């Protein structure tokens, strides 16, 4: 029976897929393409998928019956994939297995062949060998990748030559949870204990620290919303999410004093913090999505949040990953990741530990619109 139906229209579109193996990465490689990859300990697949054409048909949606994912490219990896980043302007992605200091570089491929080929490895000199590496890539400039497992080993490496272009000069050993560019050269690094650092790849000595300041929770991650195509970030919202379900919103220009915060209405189903993720909707204002506590993706509107800590309700909850299909017991399935479409305002993709991947356009039924 039809469990998705309620009197109120919650989704304008929804698609649900079942991969053979679960993924914990979803990365855009084009307006209609994403890459996913497995995280088994040994052999895994990387896939580039084309989203269903019906989603993009807009006015002609009625005439398009195509609802399926197409596997356009695929490749094999010898290890797990915890982190996958697309290098803008190229057909390149960079991956890390979450437990070593090696980055793998891949060519996703063109029209003539469906194989995703590994083109090389970048061996990093990292302080810790088992924490896994976070990756990001600047939107402009030559193909390069910013990586780090701890604050003191953050480095920008040029892809083709493997030459280090920038190394952050510091000895802070804090483990990183997120790394994000906010412009062509300014980036933010969030450590697991909640401190946010601002760096600039043009000046290795520049580092600004904004401590978490006595916040609860032993694991923090960060989500950033900025127009990163600008050389200097004019405004940038930084959200930090803690493992005790607190969210703190700050502005880049004044990271030390948060704009607002909230205690999120979440019942944690899992004790692991590895899938915690907070993201801003790129094409909506004040819209935050969180996942990794359980089988749901929650969307909040931060416009109503206050500087004092208060509890707030989400404006939308995607529960699809908790529904059990006839063959799967998904009651314990955790959402491993979610992403927003870069330009379609309400389109979200989410994945869970049972191998499900959902593509959904949610409807904002609240009076205060996002």
């Amino acid at each position: 029976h039809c469990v998705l139906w309620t009197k109120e229209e919650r989704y304008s579109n929804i698609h649900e897929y079942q991969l053979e193996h679960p993924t914990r990465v979803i990365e855009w490689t084009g307006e209609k393409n994403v890459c996913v990859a497995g995280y088994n300990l040994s052999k895994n697949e990387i896939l580039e998928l084309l989203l269903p054409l019906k989603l993009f048909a807009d006015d002609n949606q009625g005439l398009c019956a195509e609802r399926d994912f197409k596997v356009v490219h695929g490749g094999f990896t010898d290890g797990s994939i915890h982190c996958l980043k697309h290098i803008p302007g190229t057909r390149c992605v960079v991956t890390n297995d979450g437990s070593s200091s090696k980055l793998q570089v891949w060519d996703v491929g063109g029209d003539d062949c469906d194989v995703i080929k590994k083109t090389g490895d970048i061996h990093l000199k990292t302080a810790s060998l088992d924490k896994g590496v976070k990756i990001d890539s600047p939107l402009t400039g030559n193909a390069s990748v910013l990586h780090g497992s701890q604050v003191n080993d953050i480095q920008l490496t040029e892809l083709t030559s493997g030459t280090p272009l920038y190394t952050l000069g510091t000895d802070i050993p804090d483990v990183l949870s997120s790394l994000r560019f906010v412009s062509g050269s300014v980036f933010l690094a969030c450590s697991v204990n909640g401190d946010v650092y601002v760096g600039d790849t043009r000046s290795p000595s520049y580092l600004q620290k904004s401590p978490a300041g006595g916040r609860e929770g032993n694991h923090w991650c960060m989500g950033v919303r900025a127009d990163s195509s600008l050389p200097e970030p004019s405004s940038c919202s930084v959200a930090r999410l803690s493992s005790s379900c607190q969210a703190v919103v700050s502005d880049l220009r004044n990271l030390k004093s948060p704009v607002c915060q909230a205690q999120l209405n979440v019942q944690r189903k899992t004790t692991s913090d590895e899938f915690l993720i907070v993201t801003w909707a790129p094409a909506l204002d004040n819209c935050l999505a969180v996942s990794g506590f359980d089988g749901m993706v929650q969307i909040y509107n931060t416009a109503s949040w206050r500087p004092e800590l208060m509890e707030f309700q989400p404006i939308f909850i995607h529960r699809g990953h908790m529904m059990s299909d006839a063959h799967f017991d998904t009651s314990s399935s955790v959402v491993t990741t979610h992403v927003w479409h870069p330009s379609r305002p309400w389109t979200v993709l989410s994945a869970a530990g049972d191998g499900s991947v959902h593509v959904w356009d949610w409807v904002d039924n609240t009076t205060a619109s996002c």
Partner: protein
Amino acid sequence: MPEIKVTPLGAGQDVGRSCILVSIGGKNIMLDCGMHMGYNDDRRFPDFSYITQQGRLTEFLDCVIISHFHLDHCGALPYMSEMVGYDGPIYMTHPTKAICPILLEDFRKITVDKKGETNFFTSQMIKDCMKKVIPLNLHQTVQVDDELEIKAYYAGHVLGAAMVQIKVGSESVVYTGDYNMTPDRHLGAAWIDKCRPDILISESTYATTIRDSKRCRERDFLKKVHETVERGGKVLIPVFALGRAQELCILLETFWERMNMKAPIYFSTGLTEKANHYYKLFITWTNQKIRKTFVQRNMFEFKHIKAFDRSYIDNPGPMVVFATPGMLHAGLSLQIFRKWAGNEKNMIIMPGYCVQGTIGHKILNGQKKLELENRQTLEVKLQVEYMSFSAHADAKGIMQLIRMAEPRNMLLVHGEAKKMEFLKDKIEQEFSINCFMPANGETSTVATNPSVPVDISLNLLKREMALGGPLPDPKKPRTMHGTLIMKDNCVSSLIFFSDFGCPWLEHQLRFTCRVQLQDAHSDSDTHIRIYTHLKSVLKGYTIQHLPDGTVMVESIVIKVSSSPEEPNTKVLLLSWSYQDEDLGSFLSTLLKKGLPAALSSM
């Protein structure tokens, strides 16, 4: 080297025309005979010239097998059998046999009457074609002839769809046709046993697709119906027959109940008759396992769904109507469409593919103005929705099927090999089997390693047993001596018999052997030298020197010949019958060593 050859016929890579030739154990089988629905010229038919340049196909094919009634799998069948010419057996399941001619006739009517084509099969041809059909039951082995046998397996997908196993001796091929691995409301999932075919043939497009869930498709359908009814509009759903229609009816009924909907739902009486016929076909054809997944429901026991009457077309207010035919090319569904098309509050939901030339096809292509036969134009203002409900396997499903059947090789049709390297690698790595991807018109040759069953004569068996020795050990094969008879390069029953005492043996077996010698003597001198040599070596044997020079040892004949180009090289031709095999071998070995130089003629 035994091998199986597979050739997908036709030009172009696109899915849309299934017709595959298989050569196995000396037999030629055609799998499906579909029409490509996108072309209007000869490209829509498979390219039969691959089989023979001209003339009938009967002598080149041992049988034709049709997997299910969709036109891209059977649409070219009457053309092939009646216009190109084929009189051999055509196999398909009972429901396929019942439904095929209906679809073919509809298709013919549309193509000839509506599009005015002339080079097309006639109604009589469809009838003549169907007379050649032999129906199949599930899991029942059918002997096409002494060597070729076939068996149908349940494929899901549509009513009557089958996957087929073709077997000659110990070589076999399984063709999947269209299938699905997840059950839906009225069809079960495909199933096959661990039959370990040499080749499993399937569609490459499945392997590169990840299908959206049934729940989401159904949700979309219900949402569209609900929206239309809520704004006071009417929903028309043209359907062909029960299968899909019943599934949608069950969906709507449940939804109507839960949402407390008041608008009426109707199905047309034409559909009712077809539905009963269809329902009976289905129940008698399926086996226990599948019957359990079928929703046991009498079509007429829906609480919210009633029989339609033509007079209701003009009733005000919202309603939902299921009507035939499915492509809007005639009949009630077209009549309703003409009345409702002009109102933008209304909706039409097309649950399947429509053939070119039909109104269904035109509106699915976005056409907003239609020209009717009385030169009137019809404005299409209602909302048009194309929804695909057909059940197909996907990447995950294909891997499941391979795991079920355990083929030795995989073969995927309708894909471009150079664009499918990842897929090929995936299958090869996961199952350690080869994956072939022939283009249309290209042949893939798959080497097989069949075990050859052999009959052994009782005499030989007794003799071997009488020889005594240790008890037979399965780990230590024991050599036996005998003669193997193979008929026509055939791998079926071979006879392995012993020496004397075979009264039914008509042929005399003689072995021959050529030995080259360097000998400068004349032919006749060489004969004498051979004779002398053998007489000294083989004491106790009857050795003769015949007047024509031939030397005979027992029944073994030795002749010398030489060619004018090489006078110093002699060729000795030895020939002996089976009984003298040991002696014959000895002599050929002896003579290969050459003749002693200092031999004087006696």
